[in-house]
Structure formats: structure tokens, C-alpha cells
């Protein structure tokens, strides 16, 4: 109980800080003299009040958190941020129910980018901006979660990335304290966002659109300000910039930091995850382009390459911008892109899914098993970029991947039970758990999640949430041992 109260105390502090974020759309609402001022004022006030209440009410329990408190804290952060983030949507968008508002906010803070809203071009600017801000804040959370919290807890083999583990990325922990590391990485995150903003603005976007898209590109949330999404701009340059920054966001921010500080681009070549990410994406773009071109969806190969290049990067990294209705492409192309979204993003990036590190462990472990059949007495340590991955990490990765697929199966069956068709159910779950956004079928790139029943919406919300907190973090709360004194 005592440690639970310490968690609430810390959560109170975070909520009080989160309340400050409400000032951004509030300012925009005031600037454009929108009615939405009320929603943001109310939401901000509620967040601040709840935060202070928690903080003061549990101030006697203010203190150091133990690593195992992380599971509860991470879960509560995402659940409460989504709940409070949905308040302005509820107030400012009459007709939007709590289920949909919560879904939209969760989609933001988990950087998924799935939406139930339409008529974006007509919504108040502040409300449009709010989704992007939520997504950007979610990205900040993910970075810290990935480089500081998950390694500490050792979720799904991530202990390999702890500071004391010699590895391909030796100075993984940049500063001795989590808080310092987080600040450095947020600085990189903010700088890259600013760079993206300037590039988009220069490429012809309006400043408001450029800001919104920059916020949701680096967080890989990939909300758009238009119903037509990126297709609205119809600009190869903008697509190129977005694709480039999505790739950047799908790489480890620690690598970005080190590369920036040392001015040495070779660090990317030494980061096995970045290397494989680029290799897989490059090979897939070529392969999928040929497939789509042969299907005759586009008049010439160059157009096909442009469409596939952008769309594949967008889905595979876990972004989810849409510039072409890829639901009309051959099934191979769209399913392959979704598969990549499970595997590609790096540890310590804002992308979702299994992560490249675990994909590599999985592949190498499979090869190792086969090799052992031929050479039963061979001693074969599993190595990634020349560094040995201890067996207990391999086991943790295997358990993680099993739970990941089990979660996909369970949620897909839940959606099938509710009467959804197979393609929509499966792709909705995959797109949500990998924090991509659009799926196929009734949740495809040309549709939204608005048509879902409340039960289906909640299942998708759950998928986004468990995917973001790396599944085990949430499920461990349901084990009796966790609560036993």
C-alpha cells in the first residue's frame, strides 16, 4: 500500500506538469477566438486539480520509487493522461461520446494516430492541434519509457540495454541519472521536431499545418489536419520530408543524440537496429513497388515508387500517414506493410511493435536452433553486431513475442465475436497494438474507426494501450505475486 501511494504521489506531480500542456491549445483557442477555450480551460483545471490533490493527499509518501513500482506507474500514466486528454474533446465536440473521446485521446498519447473524427478541416484549430500535442507528449513519454524505464524493469529482454551491459551501443545511458538522460533525449526530440517543422514550412505547408505535422511525425502519431490526410497536399517534396523524418523517428534517439554530439554519421552504421531498419525498408519498397506496379494500380513505375515509398515507410515505422488508398493495392502489399510495422521500429524510438532488436534476436535464435541440429555439440552464443546476447535475454524476448502474438489473437477474437469481419478485425488489432493507426477493411486508410461499436472501440483502445506499454508491463499487474507483500 505504501508503495502504491508513492506511485500516486509521483503521478500527481506528472499530472500537474501535464496541466501546463493544456496552455498550448488554450493559447491557440484564444488567438483564433474559438469557443474551445472552455474545454481547454476546464480540462487544464481538472488536470491541475487532480494532480495537486494526489500530490498533497499523499505527500507523506513522497519518496523514492522502487523499480517494480514502474509497472503501476507506467500503466497509470497512460490511462490517466488519456482520460484527462479526452476532457476538452468531450466538451468542445458535442455529439462525441466518452468512448470515442477516450479512444481519440488514447490514440494520441500512445502515438497511434487512429481516429474516430471526421470533418477535420472544419473543426476548431485548437482541437485539431490538441491531438497533435497529445501525440507529441506521448512520444516524449515513450522515449523515456524505452530508454530508462523498460531497461530498468527488464521488460521483454530490454535489460540488455542497461548501462552496465556492454553492447553495440555502449553509452546507451547518456547520463548517470534517468532525469538527466530524459532531458537530453527530449532536447534531441525537440530539435528534430523543429527541423521537421522548418522543412515542412519551407516545402509549402502553412505554418499551422507544418507545426501539427511536425509534432505528429517525430512522435510517429501521424494525425493529420485534413480528412484527406497527406493526399490533401499532393506534394512529392512534403511526402519525402515526412518519410525521412518518420525514418528518423523510428531509430533510437540515443543514436541520434550521440551522432549529433560527435558529428559522426558512422554511428548509424554501427547501430544494428538502424542498419537493419533501413535495409528491410529499402528491400521492401522495391519488392512492394514491383508488386503494386504489376497490379496496374498506377500508370507508371515512378508514381508507383513514390506512392509505395511513402506509404510503406509510413506504415512500417508505425506512423500511419495516408497519401494513397493502399487498401486497393494487392493484399500482399498492404499486409506486408502491416507485418513490417510489427518488426521494424528501433528500441528507444517512438515507433511500436516488437522492435527490431527483438526481431533480430528471434531470427538469430531460430537460426541457432537449426544450426544446433546439424552440430549438436557446437557452442553458439547469440550475437547482435558482435555483442553476445545472454540466454536469459533470449528467453525474455521469446516470452515477450509469445505474449505479443497472444494479445493480437485474443483481441482479434474479441472483435470477431462482436461481428466484425476477419480482415478488419485482424488489421485493426495489429494497427492499434503496433501504434500505426489505419488498418484495412472497415478501418482502412479511406475510412476511420468511427463506425465501430463501443465494445469494438474499447478493444482497440486496449490494443493501443497494451502495445504502447509493451504488454508485460500491464499484464504483470494482474499476477497475484505483484500485489503480494
Amino acid at each position: 500500500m505504501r508503495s502504491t501511494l508513492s506511485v500516486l504521489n509521483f503521478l500527481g506531480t506528472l499530472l500537474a506538469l501535464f496541466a501546463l500542456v493544456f496552455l498550448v491549445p488554450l493559447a491557440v483557442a484564444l488567438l483564433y477566438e474559438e469557443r474551445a477555450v472552455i474545454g481547454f480551460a476546464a480540462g487544464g483545471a481538472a488536470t491541475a486539480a487532480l494532480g495537486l490533490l494526489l500530490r498533497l493527499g499523499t505527500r507523506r509518501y513522497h519518496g523514492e520509487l522502487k523499480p517494480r513500482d514502474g509497472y503501476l506507474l507506467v500503466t497509470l500514466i497512460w490511462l490517466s493522461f488519456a482520460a484527462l486528454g479526452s476532457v476538452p474533446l468531450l466538451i468542445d465536440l458535442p455529439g462525441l461520446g466518452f468512448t470515442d473521446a477516450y479512444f481519440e485521446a488514447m490514440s494520441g498519447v500512445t502515438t497511434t494516430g487512429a481516429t474516430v473524427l471526421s470533418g477535420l478541416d472544419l473543426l476548431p484549430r485548437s482541437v485539431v492541434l490538441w491531438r497533435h500535442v497529445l501525440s507529441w507528449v506521448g512520444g516524449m513519454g515513450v522515449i523515456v519509457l524505452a530508454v530508462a524505464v523498460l531497461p530498468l524493469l527488464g521488460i521483454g529482454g530490454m535489460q540488455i540495454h542497461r548501462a552496465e551491459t556492454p553492447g553495440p551501443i555502449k553509452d546507451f545511458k547518456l547520463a548517470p541519472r534517468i532525469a538527466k538522460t530524459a532531458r537530453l533525449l527530449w532536447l534531441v526530440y525537440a530539435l528534430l521536431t523543429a527541423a521537421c517543422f522548418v522543412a515542412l514550412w519551407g516545402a509549402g505547408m502553412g505554418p499551422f499545418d507544418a507545426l501539427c505535422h511536425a509534432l505528429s511525425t517525430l512522435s510517429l502519431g501521424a494525425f493529420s489536419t485534413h480528412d484527406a490526410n497527406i493526399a490533401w497536399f499532393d506534394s512529392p517534396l512534403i511526402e519525402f520530408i515526412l518519410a525521412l523524418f518518420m525514418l528518423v523517428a523510428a531509430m533510437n534517439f540515443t543514436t541520434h543524440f550521440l551522432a549529433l554530439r560527435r558529428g559522426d554519421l558512422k554511428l548509424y552504421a554501427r547501430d544494428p537496429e538502424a542498419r537493419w531498419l533501413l535495409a528491410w525498408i529499402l528491400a521492401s519498397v522495391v519488392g512492394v513497388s514491383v508488386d503494386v506496379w504489376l497490379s496496374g494500380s498506377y500508370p507508371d513505375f515512378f508514381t508507383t515508387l513514390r506512392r509505395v515509398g511513402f506509404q510503406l515507410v509510413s506504415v512500417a515505422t508505425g506512423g500511419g500517414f495516408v497519401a494513397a488508398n493502399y487498401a486497393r493495392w494487392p493484399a500482399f502489399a498492404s499486409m506486408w506493410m502491416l507485418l513490417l510495422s510489427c518488426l521494424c521500429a528501433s528500441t528507444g524510438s517512438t515507433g511500436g511493435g516488437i522492435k527490431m532488436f527483438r526481431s533480430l534476436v528471434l531470427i538469430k535464435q531460430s537460426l541457432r536452433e537449426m544450426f544446433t541440429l546439424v552440430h549438436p555439440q557446437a557452442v553458439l552464443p547469440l550475437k547482435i553486431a558482435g555483442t553476445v546476447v545472454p540466454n536469459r535475454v533470449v528467453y525474455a524476448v521469446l516470452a515477450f513475442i509469445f505474449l505479443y502474438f497472444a494479445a493480437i489473437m485474443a483481441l482479434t477474437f474479441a472483435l470477431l465475436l462482436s461481428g466484425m469481419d476477419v480482415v478488419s478485425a485482424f488489421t485493426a488489432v495489429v494497427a492499434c497494438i503496433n501504434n500505426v493507426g489505419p488498418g484495412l477493411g472497415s478501418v482502412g486508410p479511406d475510412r476511420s474507426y468511427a463506425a465501430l461499436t463501443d465494445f469494438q472501440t474499447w478493444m482497440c483502445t486496449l490494443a493501443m494501450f497494451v502495445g504502447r506499454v509493451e504488454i508485460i508491463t500491464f499484464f504483470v499487474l494482474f499476477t497475484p505475486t505483484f500485489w503480494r507483500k
Partner: protein
Amino acid sequence: MKILILGAGQVGRTAAFHLAREPANEVTVVDTDEELLRDLQDRLDIRAVAGNASYPGVLESAGIADTEVLVALTSSDEVNIVACQIAHALYRTPTKIARIRSSEYTSREQLFSEGALAVDVWINPEQLVTEHIARLLSYPGALQVVEFADGRVTLVGLRARPEGLLVGKELRTLREHLPDTDARVAAIYRDGRLIPLGGDTVIAAEDEIFFVAAADDLRRVMAELRRSDDPVRRLVIAGGGNIGFRLARTLEKSNQVKLIERDPRRARRISEVLESAIVLQGDAADEELLIEENIDSADVFAALTNSEEANVLSAMLAKRLGARRVMALVNRPSYGELMENRSIDIVLSPQTITIGSLLQHVRRGDVVRVHSLRRGAAEAMEAVVHGSRERSRVAGRRVEEIVLPDGASIVAIVRGEQVVMAHHDTLIEGEDHVIVFLADRRHVEAVERLFQAET
């Protein structure tokens, strides 16, 4: 020459043995193990001092004050370095040689070149043995491959086979067979005995032949003496000790390497460092393991464990199971003579391989390289000629004019970049590097004296 050897381990004992049998040397050995020293003293004419090799007091009682060459060969790199440092600081010992195994030290050249460490020369026996094996593997068929003058001249020992084109022919036909190749036969052993050489000497199958040639011509000459062996591709190493591990790391990129190591922990450790070599945990004498790992398609099986008996047995087993060529690391010279050319193709003697690099520093005259051959019975050395016709017994003379002891012959001359095969009328000049083959190493001193310029 007064020589002080620190450490009576395998390398130390061999060094003592080789140095003490040259009458001009006074050898003292220091070790902590008194029993070992007593045993050594019974067999060799040396002085022995028991104690810690890096303590000044012990060094003093071992006569460091007038020692000319200090050879630190204890098993600890640090003791060896400290001993050299102390010898330098307190006694100004002229030549200090240390065995340093760890590449942590040897890879930092400034440590030695800038005098930070008072070690004039470092030797690493394991590295020398590894290089030796790697050289043998790159010339399949050779029994011994040693280099002179920075690799410009190579001396190769091999056994002639009936299929060789030169076999059954007179030596003088070598030139007709290989018109644009410069090579010279240095010695021929028939049934283990040296036979006198002349232009009409006929090469017979099973002769053990030593010849010199420029490195580029080696393969062509070898092909005349035995059918050309296929290059080594698949290599199985038994023993993941320092030598086996180094060899695997050197060759894993160019060859398919399998390494068998018995100790699970050691196997794990080396498998973490090796990239493409396959590490197998098991016993190298386990027939099933060898069969399972396709020993019958292995080009070379090299048994390099610490136990020579295990090496001999596992190499014999591998040969029987179908390995094309097998080598075994064997310390005892008598074992080597027993096994070589019977069931084991090449017997590797770490001492023979290592001792040359020690000997070259204790020789008088300007001897720059010494290689021990035929398990220490013969020797080849590279000496620099100094002075003029008046001051030297070599310079300014034709090869036939130089009086050499029995069984010794001048085989090649390196003049700057140029390599000249020695003929009876070749003129030797000052600053030439002369390569001398000594069939009987008892004549070493006579040869040394020959190359000393009179002052």
C-alpha cells in the same frame, strides 16, 4: 656470453638447453621451483638460483651485474617486464628479452619503441607458433617454412614424392625444369642422414629436401618435388587454448574452421570472440564427434591442446577417420621423431619454432635471424657481412673461397632488395645478408666467428 634465464617453464628449459650446449655460453636459470631447478642442473651444465625472478636480490645472486643477455621467460608478463626494468635501472644489462603474451601490451608499440619499458625485444611463443602453423597451411605439403630478410627469401623443407617431376632426376636439371625460377637446394636428408650434394645428385622419393627460393616461386618448386597439394579449406582444430584460438581467429575469414574445446567455459568464451569459426564443445578424441563433424572431408586436422599425448592420439585417430593431413603439437623431440611421417604428417615442436627468435639475440657476429630446423638438429641463419676483404673472412670473396665447416653451406644472398642464389662463383660484398644452412648445429660457433669482422 653470460646469459640469465628467468623462469624454468617449457620455454625457459628449452632455451637453457639450447644455449648451454654452446660451450661459449654461461647460463644461469632462476625459478621459484627448486626441484625443477635441481632436475635441470642434473641434466645441463648451468647455474641455478631459486627465488622470485623480479626481486633485485635474487637477480643479484644470479649474477645480473655482469650478465650480457637477460631472457625473462616466466609465465607472467608482469614479472618479465619488471625484471627487465630492474635489470635496466640497477645494472644496465645490455640486452633484455621478455616473453610477453598479452596483446594488451604488445599492441602498444610506443611502450617498447620509446623506451617506456626497458624491454629490447619481446617474444610471444604462442604467436610464433600460430604464425608458423598458418604459414605451413598456406603451403600445403611443406614440413617447415621459415622466412629470412623480411620474407624475401623462404626456406622450405618437404618430403619428395614419386609423382614429383624432379624425382629421379639429377639436381642440375632443376634449371631446365624451372627456367625462370631461381631456387637452390640447400640440403637433402635420405633416411634421416645428410647426403653430400653435387650437380649429379639424384633426388629420390621420400628424401627430405630443404630448398630456398624467393617467396613467389615457392609453389612452383614444390610442385616439382611432389604433386601439388590442394589448398587447405576445411580445417579442424583440437584445443581452444591460446594457440588454437589464435589460429582459428587468424584463419576463420579465409577458411572453414571448426574448433573443438573440452572445457565448456573456455568454449563459451572463445565462441563469443570468434566470428565465423564453429566452436564445438567436446573431446577431440571422441570418434563420434569427429565423424559427426565430417572429419573425413577435413583438409587439415591440427591437434593443439596442452597435452602432447592427447594431441598424438587424436591426430592419429583423425588420420584414420579420413582427415587429409594431420598435425600435432608435441613438446618432446623424441616423440616427434617417433611419429613424424608415420601416422602423423607434421609434428609441430613449439620449442623449435620459438627458440630461433631467442637464439638470434645471443649470437655473436651480426646474426639477424636464426631458425631451428629438424627439431633442433640443424639450423639456418641469416648473417650480415661487415668489413672489407682485408678485415673480414667473407666480404669480397667468392663463395667457393670461403672455408665453411662440414655440412654448412651458403645458400642465398640478399643484397638490398635483390635475392641472389649462391653459386660457387658468386661474389659476396660488404653489407650483404648471407643465408647459411647448417646441417650440424655443433658448428654454429665456427660460422659465427666467420662473420665477425676483425677489429
